[in-house]
């Protein structure tokens, strides 16, 4: 055996002549002190949160049994006689979401044109972008609480809250899409003597249209969920009916309401998702 034979770790088979084989050295484990530090810090934060929070964790012991009991009360069987009224309330929520989305689109579309680089002047562009990020930072429910505390609680003001909440995301998506669009058509319109409005309509819009339409649909899906939540704080619709039934502990009606919420949300997501794919890829799949 030559002195230069590599060190070999691990089990060796009956065949002891290892020189003909590839070297079986396990590479050293890479050391990453930075990643380790981050991992420790994250663990510390999580442990601290669990330890310091004002929660009696022993309550959790009875939770699974409790949950099963309540699920039984809700779904075994659900009170299907409330199905028509549950459906009606859901339709109101969806109407709220739809109207809010349409209003949000009507407000945000011109604003996002103005916020696009090369269209609006800088002194309009930056304040608008600031407004969009402000509106995105505040949860919709908080915007709703603000609007509702000023104008009172109706489904219409709920739709307004949804509209305001949508303007932030729709505005941002809009100007990002338009800035990512090809410059060529817009420049061509300009070169042919077109006005800014003509440039937007014939140069910019055709290339961003599919993307923007898909965003609108996606925002509608989000708003359907938001409108259910707004009902909980009094704006009407499925959320309000659900909160009332929970308060009076009419569990079999709550079960029906949950089923309706799930079915309606899933159906809207499916239809909207299919439409979005059709818009983006140009084909039904």
């Amino acid at each position: 055996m030559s002195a230069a034979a590599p060190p070999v770790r691990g089990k060796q088979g009956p065949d002891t002549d290892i020189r003909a084989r590839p070297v079986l050295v396990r590479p050293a484990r890479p050391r990453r002190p930075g990643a380790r530090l981050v991992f420790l810090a994250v663990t510390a934060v999580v442990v601290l949160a669990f330890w310091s929070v004002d929660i009696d964790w022993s309550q959790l012991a009875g939770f699974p049994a409790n949950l099963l009991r309540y699920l039984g009360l809700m779904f075994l069987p659900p009170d299907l006689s409330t199905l028509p009224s549950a459906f009606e309330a859901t339709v109101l929520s969806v109407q709220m979401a739809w109207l809010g989305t349409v209003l949000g689109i009507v407000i945000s579309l011109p604003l996002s044109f103005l916020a696009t680089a090369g269209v609006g002047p800088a002194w309009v562009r930056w304040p608008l972008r600031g407004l969009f990020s402000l509106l995105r930072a505040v949860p919709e429910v908080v915007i709703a609480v603000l609007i509702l505390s000023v104008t009172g609680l109706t489904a219409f003001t709920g739709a307004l809250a949804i509209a305001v909440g949508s303007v932030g995301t729709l505005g941002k998506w809009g100007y990002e899409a338009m800035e990512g669009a090809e410059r060529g058509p817009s420049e061509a319109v300009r070169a042919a003597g077109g006005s800014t409005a003509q440039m937007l309509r014939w140069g910019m819009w055709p290339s961003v249209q599919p993307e923007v339409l898909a965003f609108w649909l996606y925002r509608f899906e989000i708003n359907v969920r938001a409108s259910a939540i707004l009902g909980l704080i009094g704006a009407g619709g499925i959320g309000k009916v659900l909160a009332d039934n929970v308060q009076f502990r009419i569990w079999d009606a709550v079960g029906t309401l949950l089923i309706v919420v799930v079915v309606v949300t899933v159906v809207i997501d499916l239809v909207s998702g299919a439409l979005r794919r059709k818009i983006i890829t140009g084909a039904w799949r």
Partner: protein
Amino acid sequence: MRPVRPRTAWKGLLVLAVVAVITVWAGFGVQVDVGALIKNFSNAADKVVLLAQPDYGFFPETLSALAQTLQMAVIATAAGAAIGLPLSFLASRVTDPSRPLVAVVRSVLNVVRSVPDLLYAAILVTIVGTGALSGVIALVLFNVGIVVKLISEAIDAVDRGPLEAALATGATWVRADRAAVLPQILPVYASQTLYVLELNVRASTVIGLVGGGGLGILIDQVRTFYRYHQLSLIILEILVVVVLLEAASSWLRKRLVS
């Protein structure tokens, strides 16, 4: 020569007409009443003035609720991410050889995800009582849905070579997943966990509105007593926390995935 004028887009007009009809129908449904709105709004002008002047003296009283909001968000994120990871492996065709199981896990979580977090909280508050625990459970339910969707999609897209190699050496599925798939999705997992934390901080500020603990409880109190100075301070706090956290999180996420 002038190019031929494009034909009128009948399809586009038809879509527009359908949208208009639905919008009008929705308008009747929610009883649009601009007159009442304007009347209410002029009555409420003084409230807007109050809202524009946050009561900074109220800040010390909000601190414990603010802390609870952050605690709830962290706990729910940790629990949701921990429960979601193994379920994601069960929900991807790459790592789960049983097609029926994939279908079951996916559809159950689709159902779980289609109910908004505040609806869960509203129901859980009566089951486990008001307070942070019901809020945390509601957030965890919602988080598991999101984590599994995002992570199982990441698993669907991994390079299958290492997994096949590991299975060929006789490794069990669990060990092969651990050695060949987990390292590939770890950056995405960390990044999406941060994203879920962002969602949770927003949600946990409002989950108290239905009794789930955190700043929302405070919002509910000050709004029932019409203390607009204090309401605007709370909203300012939410704004600061959300903006700071999102800035930090998006910076970290960019570093993680690139």
